[in-house]
């Protein structure tokens, strides 16, 4: 919320990420998915069910909103949560009406498309080949895409945040993970990375915004 040159809509969308809760929820789900996959693979069972928890990511907004009603809204106020960018696309397609505003002037979040999808695809991509360079390319392409896609949007990443993710992803090569098990350590790393980002933001947010004694009401 420091960028006062941004449009009110972009600032409202950025406000959704002020407390790190969207990252924490998504991080938990992705870590859980990767963890289940590892357990199922170790037990010799079909690990296809490990991807089921990822379905929660299509309903994460309700969970995040529930948590925000207890943590964020009493501290810094409520603004209508941003809609997902893919919902805007589907609205445009179904109604055949172009959006009324430009992309930077909408209360929209691209988190699912520009962060979660590259993270999950980056992890799945590693199952396509045994070669180390193939893995490396996948990790750095996913990270580069995340940087470029988000840099002017509501949730831009600092270079070192993504560099950490790329290093962690690259380090997995040294573990010599079997091909069949490959997406799961990647998912665990991606989820842990999101959790760490979100956790850090939440700690900072709670420290800088102590809870007000009562609502700053009376209009």
């Amino acid at each position, binding site marked *: 919320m420091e960028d006062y040159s941004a449009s009110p809509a972009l600032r409202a969308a950025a406000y959704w990420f002020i407390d790190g809760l969207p990252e924490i929820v998504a991080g938990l789900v992705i870590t859980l998915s990767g963890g289940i996959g590892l357990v199922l693979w170790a037990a010799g069972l079909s690990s296809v069910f490990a991807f089921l928890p990822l379905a929660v990511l299509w309903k994460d907004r309700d969970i995040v909103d529930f948590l925000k009603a207890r943590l964020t809204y009493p501290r810094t*106020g409520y603004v209508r949560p941003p809609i997902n960018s893919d919902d805007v696309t589907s609205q445009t397609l179904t109604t055949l009406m172009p959006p009324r505003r430009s992309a930077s002037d909408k209360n929209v979040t691209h988190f699912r498309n520009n962060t979660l999808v590259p993270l999950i695809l980056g992890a799945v991509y590693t199952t396509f080949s045994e070669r180390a360079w193939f893995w490396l390319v996948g990790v750095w392409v996913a990270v580069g895409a995340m940087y470029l896609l988000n840099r002017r949007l509501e949730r831009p990443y600092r270079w070192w945040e993504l560099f950490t993710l790329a290093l962690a992803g690259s380090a997995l090569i040294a573990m010599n993970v079997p091909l069949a098990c490959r997406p799961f350590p990647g998912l665990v790393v991606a989820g842990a990375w999101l959790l760490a980002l979100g956790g850090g933001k939440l700690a900072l947010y709670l420290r800088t915004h102590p809870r007000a004694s009562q609502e700053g009401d009376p209009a």
Partner: protein
Amino acid sequence: MNGQAQQIANLDRIVHEPARLSILTILDAVGEADFLYLQREGGFTQGNLSSHLAKLEEAGYVEIKKTFKGKLPLTLCSLTTRGERALRDYSRRMLSILQKRPVR
């Protein structure tokens, strides 16, 4: 009075005030926000925001409703259709005035 002076005199005074214009612009962009968010976002004091919101509500530009999010009481503010129309009309008039300004 010349045409441009007439146009300026006809601007909606409710919208023309900077604090109220700021509130309307924020609400137009975000759809719905509570008192605390508007206060932080616009840099208003509690009393200042209250009085401007009261004027906007009186003019029928803003709807204010008390509601609950879980157990949290919220004072939610949103633009009415009339408020949206007033803001569009104001920006159209302002643009037309400023576009006629001599270029230096």
